[in-house]
């Protein structure tokens, strides 16, 4: 399936043909579709794209794409993606994970990726539940979402990923709904084109453990966010926005932390120079 020579790859060309393990109706199918559309629209050569994920239903996504994939550890997609992007800046690097993956076990990496601002597009597939492990509350679960592990519900306010991203210094912050595939694809394109760390939180329903989320398609309010002109304003928008509002709320530019200097012409000579310092 070496289609790189074909003039214009189509979304389907970015699929690997591996059958997803997802339940019927899972929102993640649409996220997959949106990614393929985005990649096709950008005409990105498949072999120059890498998608790094954590563990969860969401984390399974790389295998379904015909790009380079790295299905790593629970919570650790962002450090892997960062290491990859820093050392191979010419690649288009995406990262994907679930709400548990990114906001719970991976929360420290999320905060620090926002600060560090590597040129990576992060897709958080938020279903407000631990899907893969069969239905425990996640950091984005509603306070009264009762489940076996927390029979009375978490009873704490959900993590607001957008607010966290903003306060941690993210340069592109947005929310989308997986049911609106084209809008999501556009958002992913904007994220990839954004020169820095782009956080896209995608409402991606889990019909299996959160059947009520099948209603999201009626409840989502599109484009409630407007790119804010100040951080304060962005935060105010996020705080007062409807729970299921989408849109890009913040975009700014700031150089990424790390960059690779050009390799020297003569490694051996540089090594000699370095080791000179060991002479007493």
């Amino acid at each position, binding site marked *: 399936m070496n289609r790189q020579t074909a003039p214009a790859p189509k979304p389907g060309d970015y699929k690997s043909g591996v059958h997803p393990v997802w339940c019927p109706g899972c929102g993640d199918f649409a996220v997959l579709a949106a990614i393929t559309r985005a990649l096709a629209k950008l005409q990105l050569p498949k072999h120059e794209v890498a998608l790094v994920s954590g563990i969860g239903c969401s984390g399974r996504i790389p295998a379904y794409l015909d790009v380079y994939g790295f299905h790593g550890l629970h919570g650790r997609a962002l450090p892997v993606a960062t290491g990859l992007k820093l050392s191979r800046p010419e690649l288009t690097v995406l990262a994907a994970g679930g709400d548990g993956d990114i906001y719970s076990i991976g929360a420290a990496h999320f905060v620090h990726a926002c600060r560090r601002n590597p040129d990576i597009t992060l897709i958080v597939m938020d279903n407000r539940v631990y899907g893969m492990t069969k239905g425990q509350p996640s950091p984005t679960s509603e306070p009264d979402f009762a489940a076996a592990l927390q029979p009375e519900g978490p009873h704490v306010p959900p993590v607001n990923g957008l607010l966290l991203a903003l306060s941690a210094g993210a340069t592109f912050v947005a929310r989308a709904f997986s049911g609106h595939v084209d809008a999501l694809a556009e958002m992913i394109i904007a994220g990839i084109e954004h020169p820095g760390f782009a956080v896209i939180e995608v409402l991606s329903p889990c019909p299996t453990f959160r059947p009520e989320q099948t209603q999201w398609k009626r409840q989502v309010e599109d484009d409630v966010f407007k790119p804010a002109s100040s951080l304060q304003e962005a935060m105010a928008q996020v705080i007062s926005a409807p729970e299921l509002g989408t849109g890009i709320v913040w975009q700014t530019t700031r150089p990424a932390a*790390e960059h690779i200097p050009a390799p020297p012409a003569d490694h051996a000579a540089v*090594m000699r120079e370095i080791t000179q310092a*060991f002479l007493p």
Partner: protein
Amino acid sequence: MPGTRRESLSLALTGSGGTGMISAGELLLRACARIGLYGLQTRSVGPQIRGGESAALLRIAHYPVEAHDDAFHVLFAADWQNFERFAGEITLADDVVVITDEAATDIPRVVRAHAADIRHLPLHAIAREHKARINMVGLGLLGHLLRLTEEELADIIHWFFTRKGRQQFIEPSIAAMRAGFALAEPMLEEVPSLRTTPDAARAQAKAGRRWLISGNQAVATGFLQAGGRFVAGYPITPATDMLEWLAARLPQLGGQLVQAEDELAAINMVLGASYGGIPAMTATSGPGFSLMAEGIGLGVMAEIPALIVDVQRIGPSTGIPTKSEQGDLQLALCGTHGDAPHLVIAPDCINDAIRTTAWALHLAEKLQCPAVLLSDQKLGQMLSVIDAPEGMPPWKAERETVAACETGDYRRFALTDSGISPVALPGAKGCMHTIDGLEHDEAALPSSKVEDHAAQLEKRWRKLQQMEEWPEEEMRHWADCIGTGEVCIITFGSSAGPAREAIRLAADMGLHARHISMRLLFPPQKKRLHKLLEGVKRLIVVEQTHSGQFLHYLKAHYELPEVVISCRRPGPKPITPQQVLRALREACTVDAKLTERVCT
């Protein structure tokens, strides 16, 4: 009583914060290195964050030394505050000469009880007089005892303050040094000293023949020389200085270092960079190494090379961050869940660390597997004079790659004979695939089938296991064996130094024994060790641990001689040649199987 004449001279410089004993020790060592002597320095510091009491522990000789001697011949104490904190690490020789201030009234009982010769000299008064620090007085005094010249010492002071941009200190410091030098004059013949004067060394010394280098710098150098270009790490004593050294030099080579938010991030960044094809490492110590357990397992499963340097410190838990032990061995061998074979390699001295690190990176890349490099605080932070290596190590990071795939059926985890499957790096056309921490089939697709799991487990083991079959010349570096005889000492890592010296001391006494220093700990080299042990009747396992981790490792993986003697002690008191020698001499008399004993 005239001072003894010694093959090597051991000096301890101790003092509270601000006395600058560590600098004085370093300058002394450097001056010795310049005139062609060998030597080493370790340091012992108190719990204070900055400026607390500290000790510079030196050993100077005409030949390369890798370990401290049993005891110190000269103790220069700027003062005695909190001396008891490291008294346990500074054993005094029977003929020790203690040099202290004329006004010192608080000499600890342990010192007074032991030292017959305590000299009270106007150290502080001289320093005050010249508006210099007491360490410069010590530098002059001790330099003279070592038969350095005033000019050599003045040169080193000049170099030191010039490099620091503090030229104003040069003159007073040199003056204080000269006064210290003069103080030594009357005692030259009474204090223990080197048997031969340094004149021979001076005659031979040519510029560039010696390096003054720490173990941490040696590891970092080996990594760069073998082609390492990406480092992610999180500060932790005693690995931080390696990271800092690398941070300054990687950019010159087109590489980079990232300060991660924690060790989980560090190991995963390394995996990310290495997945991208860039030879990568992290350096850490015990607590950080524990945090990397999960990441190392992913490296094994997804077959991603990575170098993980563990500069061991005293554990368990936070332990004693500034002191040395070899207690992470079993974690290095077993430290992730499931059956996860990976490389475990230990450099055995500073000189060796350059080559062994290059070898470890080479093997990791070749075998597509994480390699744990077990250094320790003693080795890592010891400053040592070594013969400058000729050229670079022969090993480079080279991964077998696939440039592009035509057919579209690239199998990332193909079941090859060697177990090594050529890797398509991101960017290779047509070879797109997803690597996984889940068990998978040859095409890298997740699989929970009995057959796939069995085949991939076997493959991951095979690629390491086949090293047993590699030609001898490729594997020569796996271990060193010196000496002959039916008694054999076996060590890994930094314990090799005292063991090697013990073998030489024993030979001088007509006692012939062997010493095996193992660099490659995993995969075990059963046949190779068996061969080295041929004819051995008694094996002495020397290690710096409390529980005998190396002993247990050897028992688990090898056929050992009938009599096995465990000679071990925890840190921070280092293992010394004399201790190993005693164990060696006793070994000839024991006949119980597996005697466990504490090295005394």
